[in-house]
């Protein structure tokens, strides 16, 4: 981590960049926040550890509007989002100096708490350089431990890989954290009966409070004004009055990012109600891969997206029934 700070200071000092976009130490051991650093002194607050899950790509939409270049730290999975934003002219490549940072999986404090660990005072073992598989947690109710893997975000278990898709320089090593099949959950649901599927999603979506965190954190959701906030479709709704609305919201949101979603997993990470929102996006990704050929949004900045292209031989919509 110190290497990142040193390098950031250098780049600030030599005028390559005028500010740094990174993560700032939180007031608890697990709550760092995305932050801009404008000076070498401010960088003393910089942190990069297992809890820096936030994808900084979307912040670069605003960052691109600022005067001068911004140094931004991107994890391998974040770089896909950045590429996709370049493709959609939402960020300015020339305004960004990208340091691709290493990653050994990001942590989810909810997963630690779900193991019955309460009153956390300190967590050690979450540092990026620490080569340990155990998190030692000091709590008001005694010392606890859990494995690093058991506290990892869902997305890290299906990690896309250690490569940065775009960067000016790379610092730090990444670890292979993939230990699950990305589509296993989807397949499980696909195999359910319609009644089971409906019940499953009804239950999950009943928790939705329409806080829009999933949308607002999503790098693909970069509309100036979301359809659900405007009167373009007469669809503006602020809260769930009827269960239909969450369905409408989540189906359309997933549809709007279909072919553009890089599967960065931010939506699931931020949902205050723990709704596995990736199940929507990944369903589209799976369908796209199966029907129109493997496609990874954000792997490049040029290719045509699956919903803005076609082939003459594409499957008919009836395939949905036929392949069941």
């Amino acid at each position, binding site marked *: 981590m110190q290497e990142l700070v040193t390098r950031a200071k250098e780049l600030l000092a030599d005028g390559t960049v005028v500010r740094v976009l990174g993560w700032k130490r939180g007031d608890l051991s697990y709550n760092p926040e995305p932050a801009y650093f404008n000076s070498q002194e401010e960088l003393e607050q910089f942190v990069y550890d297992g809890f820096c899950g936030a994808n900084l790509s979307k912040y670069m939409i605003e960052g691109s509007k600022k005067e001068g270049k911004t140094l931004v730290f991107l994890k391998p999975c974040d770089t896909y989002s950045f590429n996709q934003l370049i493709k*959609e002219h939402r960020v300015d490549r020339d305004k960004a100096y990208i340091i691709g940072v290493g990653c050994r999986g990001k942590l989810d404090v909810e997963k630690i708490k779900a193991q019955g660990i309460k009153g956390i005072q300190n967590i050690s073992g979450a540092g990026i350089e620490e080569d340990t598989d155990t998190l030692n947690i000091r709590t008001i109710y005694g010392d606890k431990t859990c494995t690093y893997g058991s506290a990892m975000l869902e997305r890290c278990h299906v990690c896309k890989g250690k490569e940065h898709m775009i960067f000016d320089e790379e610092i730090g090593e990444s670890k292979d954290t993939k230990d699950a099949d990305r589509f296993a959950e989807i397949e499980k649901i696909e195999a359910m009966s319609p009644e089971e599927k409906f019940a499953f999603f009804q239950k999950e979506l009943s928790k939705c409070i329409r806080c829009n965190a999933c949308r607002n954190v999503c790098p693909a959701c970069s*509309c*100036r004004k979301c359809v659900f906030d405007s009167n*373009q479709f007469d669809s503006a709704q602020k809260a769930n009055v009827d269960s239909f609305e969450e369905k409408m919201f989540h189906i359309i949101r997933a549809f709007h990012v279909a072919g553009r979603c890089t599967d960065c997993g931010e939506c699931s990470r931020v949902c205050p109600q723990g709704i596995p929102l990736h199940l929507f996006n990944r369903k589209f990704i799976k369908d796209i891969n199966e029907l129109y050929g493997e496609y990874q949004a954000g792997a490049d900045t040029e290719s045509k*997206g699956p919903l803005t292209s076609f082939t003459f031989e594409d499957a008919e919509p009836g395939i949905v029934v036929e392949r069941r």
Partner: protein
Amino acid sequence: MQRIGVFVCHCGSNIAATVDVKKVVEMAALEPGVVHAEDYQYMCSEAGQAKIDAAIKEKNLTGIVVCSCSPRMHETTFRNAAKRAGLNPYMVEIANIREHCSWIHKNMEEATKKAVILARAAIAKVSLNTPLQQGESRVTKRALVIGGGIAGIQTALDIAEAGYEVDIVEKTPSIGGRMSQLDKTFPTLDCSACILTPKMVEASAHEKINIYTYSEVEKVSGFVGDFTVDIRKKARSVNMDKCTGCGVCQEKCPSKKTPNEFNRGLNTRSAIYTPFAQAIPNVPVIDREHCTKFKTGKCGVCAKVCQAGAIEYDQQDEIVTEKYGAIVVATGFDVIKLDQYDEYAYSQSPDVITSLELERIMNAAGPTKGHLERISDHKAPKNMVFIQCVGSRCADKRGKSYCSKICCMYTAKHAMLIRDKYPDVNVTVFYIDVRTPGKNFDEFYRRAVEEYGVNYIKGQVGKVAPQPNGQLLVQGVDLIDNKQILMEADMVVLAAAIEPNKDVRKIATMLTASIDTNNFLTEAHPKLRPVESPTAGVFLSGVCQGPKDIPETVAQAGAAAVKAIGLLAKDKLLTNPCTAKSDELLCNGCSTCANVCPYGAISYIDKEVNDHGIRETRHFAQVNSALCQGCGACTVACPSGAMDLQGFSNRQIIAEVDAICR
């Protein structure tokens, strides 16, 4: 709030017999915004339109709904009526309560209920309509005719005669088309070449006509009045300006094994060739696929013998880009492939031929110099059998469901000509029906039967079996006498179905012209606009639209020319205002819409905007309304709804959905 008038048409009894028109009026009057509702016998009549006019003026209507027939029928009528009354024509919506309601439902109560809902949907939509203004676009005073057969030639001549430039693009080395392959024509039996050749000469000599032979349309962009077309001039390998048409090269060409397309493969031609003697232009083409020089690099005889030095082996394909105001499609037809018809032994026996092949055999310039003889052994036939409807009126997938229209007549012609020239040949025709509507057609057919003794048998042939002795055993059935027929024939002639030229699908796609399941181009209206394609500025000439004989083709060619002339005569065109429009405050410039636009109508600009007090320079989409055709692909690609389609806006469609579902 809009002030909406609703006008419900009885359409005589077409609507009123199944829809309670008064009830529709009564229910429509309860809808929000409706300040006037009435019914009338024929809304499209002058009196009906006068009612609309009066109501608009008296009640200050801001929008009207006409509950009547399909908008495809009378939307323009009612828009014009509204316009005359001072209402923007795009403040009119049609509820289709005839084709979509009264004509398909029998129960009055149900039909009335549905008509009310359809009216409601139209009212809900019109409440959100906004006045739209048509734009103007220019007209390039030049026409393109695709296909150089009789249809294309006639169209081009007529357009040129009216004083407009015309380009003909013909795929083969010469204009002339199918008609040039015919020997005689029915019902007058005059020689095809004798009547066609002067037309070809006239076209080639006309100062307003420019002919691109051995060329194909490569790309079409633009829209009515302003098409841009790329034409690929395939490398001819012969300099058109230098060649004198002496023909020595063809004589000396050592490679003479290529099947002669013009003679339907019944004989062969040289690798450098003109398809037929009267070809225009009379300049040969090197068929590079079969030319020894191109295949092996050795030879070069033609270049050596050419006095004019016209042979140019290094010629390349050339792309010519030209602008046109109107495009006429005259791509013609071909006969279907018969490889699916093994029962007629077409591929087993050379003596089973198609009528078009017989046409070449009968022609003095054909493979047999006009002598009627078997291809297998050059013997004169004694017994000939003609089989009708091979692949036409066919129920299964091998053939075509339609009647090819010309076969009955040309078969009568063939039979008559053979009996006339070779009275000792017995001619039998197997037919399903003999169809002879047309001036002097039935008389012609009766002469074949009565004067020339052609043996017509109503019935189908089940099998043609080549015999070891070279004869063809024909097994058929006589439906009138209800008996099996077994006869030997020396030659069997199949009246194969005709189908649109294979390339028409590609061309239709380029032109965005619609095409039916049989690959015939669709006309804008089957009765009232038979020579126009639904795509504005594209006209249809000849068999590409449906089976036709020569006089019909020529008539339609003239009609298509008139339509094209009518278009070219205008200086400006009014454009469809139902185009996409981007909301500059909502658009985030992501370019997804531009990626799906088939017309390249979307571009991006950087401009300062004032978004509720926030002033900033933004990158957003702009639609060129002259290029936009209003498909709406962009509106769905746009997640925020910044891109919307005027006349079919998101909120309008949603209002219709709501009205239907409530």
